[in-house]
């Protein structure tokens, strides 16, 4: 973002228009990676991501949330589930930094403790959908024909239902609780990844370099692993980041409907939903979890964008 803004201001300033040489040197310094680094290698990706300002902001935010989440049992000023009716409906003050809810529970403690549910559900569910989705998409895209039709028609069944309804159906079958919620979200997310992966595979499979790989006796598994997947994966990386944040949000919807995380466990979405009755008189009850949701979603999105750029060698400049 910061770079984008800088570029825009430069555009407006006509003096910069003729400073081609300066800019050229600049590009050399930042854009060129040292020769030994390979796009796709961990070191290269890390180099690129760590030079991306917005990604650094995202990572710092995410790290802060993760650290707070791990330390929550030790730093929370109050037990997250302790009711304290005389303190109910308090706005932010020195005893309760973010205020209290309708039964007097400390919101700061609840938000800090709740981070673990949102993060764990969001990340684990996404890993499940991504791994299964990428695998199915890759198989469907590479082999095509009958296998493709079978897999895709099967996934169509999933996609025929709205995500939330489907997740509810799974919860109704498997039961309540965090682990059930993870599976429900993980399975409903498969078709999205599978379709995206399949589309990207189809784009890459028709490239001449795949044919070229076949002419040099490259074994099929190596063609898939070395040439197809690395070239088809970058949109998936962004999708993963987005899905983590979306899953966090969906899990809170499930919690609100009584199918995800159960009270008194302080899941952010559940907190948000529970406080919506008080939004007019006590907005702080909504704002506290809301801000944390926004920060988490934002940090994942920033990191996702940076990874996409880092994984695509054409984004060097």
């Amino acid at each position: 973002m910061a770079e984008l803004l800088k570029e825009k201001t430069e555009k407006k300033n006509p003096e910069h228009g003729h400073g081609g040489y300066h800019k050229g040197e600049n590009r050399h310094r930042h854009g060129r990676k040292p020769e030994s680094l390979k796009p796709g290698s961990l070191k290269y990706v890390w180099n690129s991501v760590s030079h991306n300002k917005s990604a650094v902001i995202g990572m710092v935010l995410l790290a802060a949330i993760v650290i707070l989440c791990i330390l929550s049992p030790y730093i929370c000023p109050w037990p997250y589930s302790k009711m304290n009716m005389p303190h109910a409906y308090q706005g932010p003050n020195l005893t309760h930094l973010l205020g209290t809810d309708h039964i007097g529970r400390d919101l700061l403690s609840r938000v800090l403790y709740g981070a673990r549910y949102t993060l764990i559900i969001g990340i684990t569910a996404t890993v499940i959908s991504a791994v299964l989705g990428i695998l199915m998409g890759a198989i469907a895209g590479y082999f095509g024909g009958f296998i493709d039709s079978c897999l895709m028609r099967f996934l169509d069944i999933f996609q025929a239902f709205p995500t939330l309804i489907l997740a509810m159906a799974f919860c109704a079958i498997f039961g309540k609780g965090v682990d059930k919620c993870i599976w429900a979200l993980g399975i409903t997310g498969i078709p999205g990844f599978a379709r995206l992966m399949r589309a990207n595979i189809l784009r890459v499979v028709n490239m001449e370099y795949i044919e070229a790989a076949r002419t040099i006796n490259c074994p099929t598994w190596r063609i898939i692993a070395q040439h197809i997947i690395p070239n088809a994966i970058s949109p998936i990386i962004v999708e993963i980041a987005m899905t983590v944040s979306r899953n966090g949000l969906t899990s809170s919807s499930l919690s609100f409907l009584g199918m995800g995380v159960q009270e008194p466990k302080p899941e952010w979405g559940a907190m948000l939903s529970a406080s919506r009755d008080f939004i007019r008189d006590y907005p702080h009850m909504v704002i506290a979890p809301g801000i944390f949701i926004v920060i988490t979603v934002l940090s994942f999105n920033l990191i996702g964008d940076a990874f996409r750029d880092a994984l695509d060698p054409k984004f060097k400049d």
Partner: protein
Amino acid sequence: MSENKTALFSVRDLVVEYHSGQSIIHAVNGVSFSLGVGETLGLVGETGAGKTTIAKAALRILPDHSVERVGGEILFEGKNVLDMGDAELRDLRGKKISMIFQDPMTALNPVKTVISQIAEGYKIHHNCSKAEANQQAIKMLEMVGIGADRADEYPHQFSGGMKQRVVIALALACSPQLLIADEPTTALDVTIQAQVLDLIKGLRNELGTAMILITHDLGIVADVCDYVCVIYAGRIIESGTKEDIFDNPAHPYTKGLFAALPDLDKNVRRLSPIEGLPPDPSQVRDECDFYQRCPHRCDKCLAYDREMIELSPGHFSRCWRTEE
């Protein structure tokens, strides 16, 4: 080209710069030419020489978001296109100047019938009834060799060559005074290319339309054009009549282009390519643009003022050693 005062279209010191990432791309660096009523000018050059940019600048359809600077003048009937307001531009585009693009697949709207696409422009510019516009559209389609029975079909029902005919009908529907054809046959097969070139030539002669033909193919220029400008690195490096350029090419680059073509009538074991590559358009140079690749370069070329030298009336070359 004709240096008389009645020039229909002229370009004076046109400069176009794009920004790309952190650098400035100098796409067109001071191009000047003019064109009289009914004349045909060929702009020849290789990929990235700036040919298409010149054409787009003439219609003011350069992508705003990446243009850094457009300088100089583009005069159509004495009026500067670069100073025109939106209303004047609308009147100019399609009605007075129209353009044929390289790829006929993307120049047509896939969800509209060809007749409605042609009639639409005519209706807007002539403010006439739909029936009248349709009549004109059918006339145009027949002129490019497509029967009235196919008028209600959609673009995907036509083959590549037929689509390019539709595009030509579309471009000529409002009888423009100037037609800019940007690589009109590059996407077509050679036998289809022959048909389309023949059609373009015939229509031009019949309607008296002036034409700028942009191409990388010297053979097409030889076939269609009266005047030729050879463009290299955003500058015209040689210009003159077709006879000047093809019979007495003067600039080392022009000579190199001819030498690099495999010749059908001669048998040579090796071709003579122009070694090296075109210069980086993001760099500003003091030396002649062609210096790095020129077989005749010398120290004086390092600080060249880039003046055009008139070799014979109307034949210019941007090389000070041409006369040697």
